[in-house]
């Protein structure tokens, strides 16, 4: 063991990034490369009567103009890396290019490949599309009513409905001392990663379409192959270091378009979306309307919780049913409630489609239930921390689905520690009023168990004692690949700088699954740990033979085998040489399987749905300008049970980044859709926090070591952005006495809540 686990380590990729040497998707070029562009629908709802591409095709320098009729299988099934057909309505239709009806503004209608980007752009303007505008439907509740405008052709607008019941909520509410009701709304938001969607594809001499792309899911090679109608092994995806993902690069972006253009032209092709295109047409976070009723006794014990959740799926199914499943299971939050009734529904509209975004359906209900908890505490005159002490789940508690949580739950400790660290309120002169807010959150790491998730990794020692790792993990900036290096360095007793990793290539690295669902440290970390330990075992048993001692007395450290209680050292290279000489395998490839379950009865969801949860809390201090409604976040404390911080720098990076990511959600971010038209088309209308808006985030990491990841680690990527939004709105309440139930809490919204009409 080299003792690198738990040490703050610079990531292996950090230097190249700090020097500007990393070749991101758009930084890559090939000789003879063409540029692809997408023609996008000008209407959110319309019928395509005809498309005339002749003028565009005639433009010198244009090599291909493609429409739906040129796509071998224009309609397939949306997958996001799963190797299992889950069925049960989870997998929706994936359409490459608009056909029949246009469903959202910005939907891809045609593709162009040309010798320069400008020619491609000009060609787009020469494509004549005759649309018949249709009325469309833009509100999910309206879309769910009988007789509503049908977004698709024959399918219902309602994609999925779930229900979770436990006990008798209505009956319990009748006996509750206090009942809190509220309707909470959260908006469309954009991931706003700084690197827009991009890729370069080419055809190789084996007839394989290679796609080098910024993605979270290289397993989309199967989806691309399905669209082209070619075998899976004729499409290869190489994931680049992504300039951020946050769920927005979980669905297919440029991949199928590039594949089609390369197949048509035989030439390499690049496609990079403009920021406007990105905001207009990649997935958004689901807006929700959440109607909550919480009943409690005078002593603060919650006796019933009812919630009705409606999400806007936008124009295509994508991941909406999965996201909704997270919302339903997380709807009660980390509270033990005997009587629960959760209904959840996701509905198609003619808005931009919605899909994964950091938090994946868990953070929307978190805003609702943590607002309710705060209100309950106020109503009962109980301290907000005390109400959580009374109601939080602990190991062995029964969750809403009837599953008894079987791992350590650091609640309400995380909230207490966060609140304690915040200390006394700052004093500020009028017109500012200061308030403090706390909220807790739970979110799973690892995929829904009925997806039967797996990951693989390959570890090989070289003759000189250096180590090569191959693992198909896409690295989107969270330190995904660096933590694998650290695990290998630990197990094989070598320096981090002696471990080299190849990631994210469907042809050459073992498939490791998606960089989504906060699963890579858990899944690929465990696969890598398994491979490294197998190899370690082999090396140690050879060393034991060479040293004439039992292998359980041996350890690997600093490139040597060391014997417990002795000063003898056997250089690792000698062991490797001996193994090689005998024809022993100097590599190991391992697979890690998450626990599996079957798809539950969706009308009565029961059982364990996720492998485990990460629990955390935020305590924040805000100042509200009582004359303008402007909220400033003065301080944030983030406290999480991280299980084990493999690399504390990376873990803190997730907590700090997650807090600011959703501080934006709380205060300023909203993709404004006006009857399907995006009114915030660029980063000067869609505002995310700048360095001048972000306070320092204080991180407290508890390490109870009871996570399912390597060395007891839990996942942090998504859970880190949970609970900050309700902590902020609870703090606003504390400051000025108004409860903001609709995000973002813009100055105008806060002021109107305070003053009514202006």
């Amino acid at each position: 063991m080299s003792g690198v686990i738990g040490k703050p380590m610079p990531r292996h990729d950090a230097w190249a990034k700090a020097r500007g040497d990393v070749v991101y998707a758009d930084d890559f070029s090939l000789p003879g490369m063409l540029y692809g562009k997408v023609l996008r629908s000008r209407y959110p709802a319309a019928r395509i009567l005809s498309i005339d591409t002749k003028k565009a095709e005639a433009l010198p320098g244009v090599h291909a103009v493609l429409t739906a009729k040129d796509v071998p299988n224009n309609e397939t099934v949306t997958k996001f890396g799963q190797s299992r057909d889950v069925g049960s309505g989870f997998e929706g239709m994936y359409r490459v290019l608009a056909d029949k009806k246009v469903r959202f503004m910005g939907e891809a209608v045609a593709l162009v490949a040309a010798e320069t980007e400008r020619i491609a752009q000009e060609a787009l303007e020469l494509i004549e599309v005759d649309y018949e505008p249709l009325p469309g439907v833009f509100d999910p509740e309206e879309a769910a009513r009988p007789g509503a405008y049908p977004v698709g052709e024959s399918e219902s607008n309602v994609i999925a409905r779930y229900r979770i019941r436990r006990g008798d909520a209505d009956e319990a509410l009748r006996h509750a001392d206090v009942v809190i009701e509220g309707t909470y709304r959260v908006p469309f938001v954009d991931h706003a990663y700084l690197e827009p969607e991009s890729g370069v594809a080419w055809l190789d001499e084996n007839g394989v379409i290679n796609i080098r792309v910024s993605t979270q899911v290289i397993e989309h090679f199967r989806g691309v192959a399905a669209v082209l109608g070619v075998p899976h092994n004729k499409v290869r995806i190489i994931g680049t270091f992504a300039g951020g993902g946050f769920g927005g690069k979980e669905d297919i972006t440029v991949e199928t378009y590039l594949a089609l253009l390369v197949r048509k032209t035989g030439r390499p092709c690049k496609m990079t979306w403009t920021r406007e295109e990105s905001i207009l047409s990649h997935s958004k976070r689901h807006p929700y309307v959440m109607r909550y009723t919480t009943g409690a006794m005078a002593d603060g014990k919650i006796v019933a919780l009812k919630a009705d959740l409606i999400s806007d799926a936008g124009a295509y199914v994508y991941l909406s049913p999965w996201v909704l499943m997270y919302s339903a299971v997380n709807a009660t939050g980390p509270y033990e409630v005997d009587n629960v009734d959760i209904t959840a529904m996701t509905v198609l509209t003619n808005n931009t489609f919605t899909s994964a975004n950091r938090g994946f359906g868990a953070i929307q209900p978190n805003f609702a239930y943590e607002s309710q908890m705060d209100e309950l505490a106020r109503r009962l005159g109980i301290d907000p921390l005390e109400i959580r002490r009374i109601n939080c789940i602990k190991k062995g508690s029964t969750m809403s689905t009837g599953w008894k949580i079987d791992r350590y739950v650091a609640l309400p400790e995380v909230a207490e520690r966060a609140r304690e660290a915040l200390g006394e309120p700052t004093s500020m002169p009028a017109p500012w009023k200061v308030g403090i807010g706390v909220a807790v959150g739970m979110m799973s790491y690892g995929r829904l168990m009925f997806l039967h998730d797996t990951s693989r990794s390959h570890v090989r020692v070289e003759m000189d004692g250096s180590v090569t790792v191959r693992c198909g993990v896409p690295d989107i900036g969270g330190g995904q690949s660096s933590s694998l290096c650290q695990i290998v360095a630990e197990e094989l007793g070598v320096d981090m700088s002696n471990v080299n990793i190849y990631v994210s290539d469907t042809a050459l690295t073992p498939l490791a699954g998606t960089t989504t669902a906060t699963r890579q440290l858990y899944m690929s970390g465990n696969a890598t740990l398994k491979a490294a330990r197998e190899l370690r075992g082999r090396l140690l048993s050879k060393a034991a033979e060479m040293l004439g001692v039992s292998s359980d007395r041996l350890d690997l450290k600093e490139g040597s085998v060391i014997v417990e209680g002795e000063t003898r050292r056997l250089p690792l290279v000698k062991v490797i040489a001996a193994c090689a000489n005998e024809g022993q395998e100097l590599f190991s490839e391992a697979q890690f399987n998450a626990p599996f379950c079957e798809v539950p009865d969706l009308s009565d969801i029961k059982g364990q749905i996720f492998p485990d949860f990460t629990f955390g809390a935020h305590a924040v201090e805000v100042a509200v300008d009582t004359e303008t409604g402007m909220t400033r976040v003065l301080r944030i404390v983030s406290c999480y049970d991280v299980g084990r911080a493999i690399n504390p720098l990376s873990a803190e990076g997730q907590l700090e980044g997650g807090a600011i990511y959703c501080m934006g959600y709380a205060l300023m971010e909203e993709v404004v859709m006006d009857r399907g038209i995006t009114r915030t088309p660029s980063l000067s209308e869609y505002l995310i926090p700048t360095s001048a808006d972000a306070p320092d985030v204080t991180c407290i990491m508890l390490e109870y070591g009871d996570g399912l990841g390597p060395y007891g680690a839990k996942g942090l990527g998504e859970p880190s952005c949970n609970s900050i939004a309700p902590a902020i709105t609870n703090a606003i309440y504390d400051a000025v006495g108004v409860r903001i139930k609709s995000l973002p809490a813009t100055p105008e919204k806060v002021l109107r809540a305070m003053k009514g009409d202006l």
Partner: protein
Amino acid sequence: MTEGYAIELTVNGRQVSAEVRADETLLEFLRTQLRIIDAKSGCGKGDCGTCTVLLDGLPVKSCIVLAASADGKDVKTLSGMQNEPLVKALQESFVTHGAVQCGFCTPGMILTAASYLNEHKNPSRDDIRRALSGNLCRCTGYKKIVDATQAVARRNE
């Protein structure tokens, strides 16, 4: 190329002569004509700062600078400044403080920080936050970026 406009400039210490379109941005020119890729394109309209370069020593957003207006000027990108002690110190500090995540904002962020620290010897955290406020980062929440920058500033005192 009848619409080309001839420019001569210095890029990362080298003399360059080129023809640019009237509306070609400095960023496009650097990336496509000179294949200098450390300046990134994140928004195309001056909203994010990933395209930051130094123009006659001043940090600017190269996606909203005309390539033609760089005629006669000195352009530096991060890759042309790897030997500047301040840049090196910042790079090392960003690496050791964990201020680099996806890395897409990093070249621009480091250039802005370097140019600010050149002029300001003892900035507060708030000063640094304001100085970097034209460069967006979506991963880190900025704290470690401020930490890393401040650590270098302290060393330079």
